[in-house]
């Protein structure tokens, strides 16, 4: 990969007026909700402390979380690579199945949807933003607002073209069209795949934030529920996990999200003769794939380990001056913005990350924006330094 590819990608993005309009509207809206974040700043510093305790013990805590999940009647896996995560999920799904998926950056990272489709499954993203991204064949442009760059007019055109929906340009009409299309998929789905915002090692409880109820449906209606989450999402206790969830929603721009889902085991009932059977109204099986894919190594890296504190709230992206212009074109293949550059280094191509690192201003507004005050400029500079020293060593 060459730097000229990165610079022309960014130049192309900065000339895209529709992208700029979409970004400007979303960023303005977020800035109006920044007070929700500020109200939670004290809680955020406690989550930082929890992360400082958890990350050095990542392997041990992931193992404990896996044990807790299995004690509860679920099945847990620790996947060392993206390929292994795909393989495990692929074997669980099989082929010829209908899969409904909730939004999850980790599934993007391991390219799960593409893999399940290749195995001959029908897979649908059910978060509206992610659904739009799927239909566009594009990349999520923000951690929590994947379709931040798409205007309503473009969505309407897309739905008319791809779904044969008879819709005008009004947003409620578009939301209704997606609901009608996906409702039937939820009801028929064999497998639901979701991510996680936090997992408690002590109880095995898995927390997921959302507004649309698609996580709720995808994790409750199908027979089989698969959770895919990075190992860094594991906290020592349920209380710490809850604190992280609250801070994530606050810094994402919500006083409260519509839903917080907590799953600890497959659906079960003991109502007949106190004999427990799995699969009451919800899934009979719960599978949790905890993904390493570079995270364990990063947890031992004196500089990059701080990136594992990231809650994926997207606050830094909303407040980054470069993101305001390039949107998600900056960061790498999967991850977005300055924090995306670092996550690309951890989970994807180090070379790609290093080249993208040069677009960072090192201005430090991300540190102010971040609930955990992650020092992205420090890590970005370190990537530049490592690139140069590896070039010299050649």
């Amino acid at each position, binding site marked *: 990969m060459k*730097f*000229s590819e990165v*610079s022309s990608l*960014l*130049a192309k993005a*900065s000339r895209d007026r529709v992208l700029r309009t979409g970004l400007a509207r979303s960023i303005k809206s977020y800035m109006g909700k920044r007070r929700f974040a500020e109200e939670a700043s004290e809680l955020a510093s406690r989550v930082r402390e929890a992360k400082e305790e958890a990350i050095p013990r990542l392997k041990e805590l992931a193992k404990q979380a896996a044990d807790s999940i299995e004690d509860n009647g679920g099945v847990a896996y620790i996947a060392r690579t993206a390929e292994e995560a795909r393989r495990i999920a692929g074997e669980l799904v099989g082929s010829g199945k209908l899969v409904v998926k909730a939004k999850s950056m980790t599934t993007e990272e391991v390219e799960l949807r593409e893999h399940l489709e290749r195995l001959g499954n029908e897979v649908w993203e059910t978060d509206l933003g992610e659904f739009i991204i799927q239909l566009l064949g594009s990349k999520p442009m923000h951690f929590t607002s994947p379709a931040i760059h798409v205007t309503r007019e473009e969505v309407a055109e897309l739905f008319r073209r791809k779904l044969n929906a008879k819709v005008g340009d009004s947003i409620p009409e578009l939301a209704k069209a997606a609901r009608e299309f996906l409702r039937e998929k939820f009801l028929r789905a064999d497998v639901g795949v979701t991510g996680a915002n936090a997992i408690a090692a002590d109880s095995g409880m898995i927390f997921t934030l959302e507004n649309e109820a698609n996580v709720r449906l995808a994790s409750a209606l199908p027979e089989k529920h698969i959770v895919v989450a990075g190992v860094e999402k594991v906290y020592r206790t349920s209380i710490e996990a809850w604190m992280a969830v609250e801070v994530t929603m606050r810094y994402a721009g919500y006083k409260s999200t519509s839903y917080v889902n907590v799953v600890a085991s497959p659906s079960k009932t003991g109502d007949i003769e106190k004999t427990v059977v799995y699969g009451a109204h919800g899934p009979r099986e719960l599978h949790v794939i905890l993904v390493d894919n570079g995270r364990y190594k990063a947890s031992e890296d004196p500089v990059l380990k701080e990136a594992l504190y990231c809650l994926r709230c997207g606050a830094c992206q909303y*407040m980054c*001056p*470069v993101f*305001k*212009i*390039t949107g998600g074109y900056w960061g790498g293949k999967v991850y977005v913005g300055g924090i995306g550059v670092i996550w690309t280094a951890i989970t994807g191509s180090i070379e790609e990350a290093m*080249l993208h690192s*040069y*677009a*960072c*201003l*090192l*201005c*430090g*507004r991300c*540190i*102010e924006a971040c609930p955990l005050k992650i020092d992205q400029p420090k890590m970005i*500079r*370190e*990537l*530049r*330094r*490592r*690139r*140069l*020293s590896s*070039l010299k060593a050649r």
Partner: protein
Amino acid sequence: MDLSALLKGIEENARRSGNPLGLKGVIGRWAKGLDLPGKGRYVIYSGGLYDLARYIKLSSRLLGVAESLKVGKAALRAGRLGSSLLKAAARGRGLEAAARGVVRALQKCGVDLAYAGDSYCGVLYYDLGLDELFEEQAKATARMLASSGASVVVALDPHTAYALRELYPKFIEWSMEVKHYVELLYELGYSPGVKAGGSVVLHDACYMARFLKLVEEPRWLLESLGYEVLEPECSRELTGCCGGPIEAVLPGLSREVAAERAVELALSDSVVVECPICWSALSEQAGKLKLKVAELGELLEAGA
């Protein structure tokens, strides 16, 4: 842009003439005729940016043109500034007077100010990951400043103040106290000879507000100088970057960042910046919106 050619060019320039632009005999020009003693308790140090500002402004414009024409290596040659371009840059407005304004204000407060020479502080090398170069520069700068016998270095811009205060101790033996001049004026209760009037929009420099935590002090200084300070959208710790830091590597993107920030600053036709990089990056874009950009030191020069 050809990244490796750019980095190589910067390294060559640094080794040849001690600064990323490869200019000889430029840094320290601002202090000519000031007649400061070589020794004293406080030593003033510009770190190079006030003399380089006029050249940075011109070269980033040239790099921008070159980028849009997709000529990588040619851009570098342009970035090295030919002699006719050097003359053109020398004729335009620069920030040497701004640096002198700071000295006058400090002297007015009775600061025992020495000048031991000047150099580029090396911060861009650090930002680009050229650590060896940064360390060499830090050593040379430290030796030069030590010759003044001063215990306190007074830095003029936030990048230099940050580099000396936070980075030098990580790379070299360094025991000098570092003050940004605004901090010192605030502590000494500077009062200008002439009071201005009118309102100005303050653009907080990222390194000033977020890394040096100097937020109230520059506001106090502007008010002391007789200005009403207007706060743009995104100010103080949440200030927006001027785009300057990526002007060499990604000139087009840098200008877009500057243009976005200029729009936020358009609350009054006078914008005040606290850093030569902000001055260089914002002047062109703010000019398009008919805004005048002044560097804080320039106002001190006028107020002295």
